[in-house]
């Protein structure tokens, strides 16, 4: 009973935060969006903190995280002295991108000098778009990330104030990658809510990189929800690099709808983080849509990385292909749940899924669970999951050629990881991430890499 009481207490405390700060939360935002908050809070109260009793959160129990936090909420944009150029320049040398900075969930124009985007492209603060681009936001907001379906979406919807809005018009190609850097930076422990909406029009093309970073060593929780609408014939690549310190809980939801003939690549590379939970939903909602969905997680110490995917094949002739890999060291833990639903009329579906994991110690632990629900006979589906250790025969083979054990282990781990990275189609980006992963495996990436210098100071 104690557990149930605690949970209720936490839910009540969070609800109190909501009630006490409602005027701040609603400030400057129109009624049509504010009116979605109360039902979302109700949904959160109904579902509670996601814990192991919730089948979808079986491998990532957030009960204790929320019980123990009493963090400041970022109800308004904080004043910062972050210079955009200093933040990321060393991570990605000579990699030409459109940089977009979001700090503590807030998009601040002073951090984002105007860049030369193709005509019609809109990149701005979500709260500004709510007012200035109401027709677009209202059409898509809360349609893919439904508050009633998930407690983290519910919480996000109740508290959402800002984030990023991107609109790419029909037939528009953005050749330079968009690099969205999410920075967490605060003098005290901080809870961040971020809400993004991205709309890619018909026959548009873009490559979008999310880079999640921490700049100060405080405790952070970030609840980040992105809705992503991909139009007909659009070609979209989404890459994310999660590189935050061990006192960060990164709770990320990416909810995507793909229309006819669209092509999607997602690749989530989790280098560092305390608790990382990635929810990824892809709704294949037009014929011949294709999704290639990948993830690589490297964890050590007590880190926890959990990828939860839900691929919904709603229309015939679509293809999805998932490849997730984890390398777990020390007493780190990991989870992978891959849910695939093929609708009754979604014939000629091809849905594939693979999850391979390497445990480097006996204390590391990985849970993996495919969940395929297939409601018609005319499909090709497969899934496979493995949990193993470094191949000792291969290790001896390398050593027998004069390569020392440490180097040989690294070569094998890197080879294992590289299969996921090979799916990154932007050569330069792949090289950069290859190098980061190599460094990470060698233990040369500090907990927040270039940003760590800031922490030490």
């Amino acid at each position, binding site marked *: 009973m104690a557990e149930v009481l605690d949970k209720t207490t936490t839910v009540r405390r969070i609800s109190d935060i909501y009630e006490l700060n409602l005027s701040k939360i609603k400030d400057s935002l129109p009624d049509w969006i504010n009116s979605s908050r109360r039902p979302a809070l109700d949904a959160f109260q109904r579902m509670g903190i996601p814990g192991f009793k919730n089948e979808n959160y079986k491998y990532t129990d957030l009960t204790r995280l929320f019980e123990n936090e009493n963090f400041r909420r970022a109800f308004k944009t904080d004043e910062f002295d972050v210079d955009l150029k200093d933040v990321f320049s060393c991570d990605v040398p000579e990699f030409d991108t459109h940089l977009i900075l979001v700090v503590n969930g807030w998009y601040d124009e002073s951090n984002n000098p105007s860049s030369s985007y193709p005509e019609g492209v809109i990149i701005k603060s979500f709260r500004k778009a709510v007012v200035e681009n109401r027709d677009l936001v209202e059409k898509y907001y809360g349609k893919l990330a439904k508050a009633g379906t998930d407690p983290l979406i519910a919480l996000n919807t109740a508290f959402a104030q800002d984030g990023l809005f991107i609109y790419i018009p029909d037939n528009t190609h953005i050749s330079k990658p968009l690099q969205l850097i999410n920075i967490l930076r605060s003098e005290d422990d901080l809870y961040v809510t971020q809400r993004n909406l991205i709309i890619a029009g018909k026959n548009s093309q873009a490559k979008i990189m999310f880079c999640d970073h921490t700049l100060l060593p405080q405790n952070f929780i970030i609840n980040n929800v992105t809705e992503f609408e991909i139009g007909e014939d659009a070609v979209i690549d989404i890459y994310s690099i999660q590189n935050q310190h061990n006192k960060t809980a990164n709770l990320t939801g990416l909810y995507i709808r793909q229309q006819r003939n669209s092509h999607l690549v997602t690749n989530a590379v989790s280098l560092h983080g305390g608790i990382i939970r990635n929810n990824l939903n892809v709704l294949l909602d037009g014929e011949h849509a294709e999704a290639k969905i990948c993830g690589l997680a490297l964890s050590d110490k007590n880190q926890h990385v959990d990828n939860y995917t839900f691929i919904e094949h709603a229309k015939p002739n679509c293809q999805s292909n998932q490849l997730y890999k984890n390398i777990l060291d020390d007493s780190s833990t990991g989870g992978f749940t891959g849910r695939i639903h093929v609708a009754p009329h979604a014939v000629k579906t091809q849905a594939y899924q693979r999850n391979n994991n390497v445990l480097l110690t006996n204390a590391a632990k990985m849970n993996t669970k495919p969940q395929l629900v297939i409601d018609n006979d005319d499909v090709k589906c497969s899934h496979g999951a493995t949990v193993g250790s470094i191949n000792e025969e291969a290790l001896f083979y390398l050593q027998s050629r*004069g390569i020392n054990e440490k180097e040989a282990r690294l070569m094998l781990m890197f*080879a294992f990881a590289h299969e996921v990275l090979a799916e990154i189609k932007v050569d330069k980006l792949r090289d950069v991430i290859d190098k980061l992963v190599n460094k990470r495996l060698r233990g040369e990436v500090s907990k927040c890499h270039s940003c760590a210098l800031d922490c030490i100071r």
Partner: protein
Amino acid sequence: MLVIKDLYARVEGKDILKGINLTVNAGEVHVIMGPNGSGKSTLANVLAGNTNFEVTHGTAIFNGKDLLEMSADVRAKEGLFLGFQYPVEIPGVSMVNFLKTAVNEHRKYRDQPALSAGDFLKLMREKKAMVQIDSQLTNRSVNEGFSGGEKKKNEIFQMAMLEPTLAILDETDSGLDIDALRIVSNGVNLLKTPNNATILVTHYQRLLDYIVPDFVHVLYDGRIVKSAGKELALELEEKGYDWIKKEQGE
């Protein structure tokens, strides 16, 4: 070069080698034959430093140094090479990266500077031509998707790259067609110098049509029970191993 004295080894609690004595000098080719399960592969693996095998007694001195004290990679850098009976496929590790790392580890051990990319590729081209390995194979991951013959040729190619002083080839001839067998044995013959030595572990006489050994040893039940010149191989081919077993009192 190599002096093995009274060597005992076990795997998973079972004694396999029961007192091996063997001396190999520079310039010599030794052949070790014997029925299945006699300990041939165990001997090869023990000498190369496979930690799945536990040495319980005896010594192996390699060029004056205690071989058994060295880790597998140090043994390789000291000049010992094992050609695997079953070369391992390593997806994701490219042949080029693998060989470059191996060659430069050897050079580092000898206080030589690492080869430049250009010099390395040149070396690789030379050795490929020498052992007649298909140039496409080096563009792939280590042994991945190689045929049985390609894997064995790849072992000889690696041997050519690393230039060991003692090569132990564990059944490098098994599973080869006649053309591959010729290429493999040509490689062994080409790489032979007065300063290095070879131990061939084999089942078959047919390899000896191409490579002329100085000594033939019969390994039986963990011991070398007979040593002679190349004529012993012919005798084994003709009579099988039964007469050896009889001599051993079975």
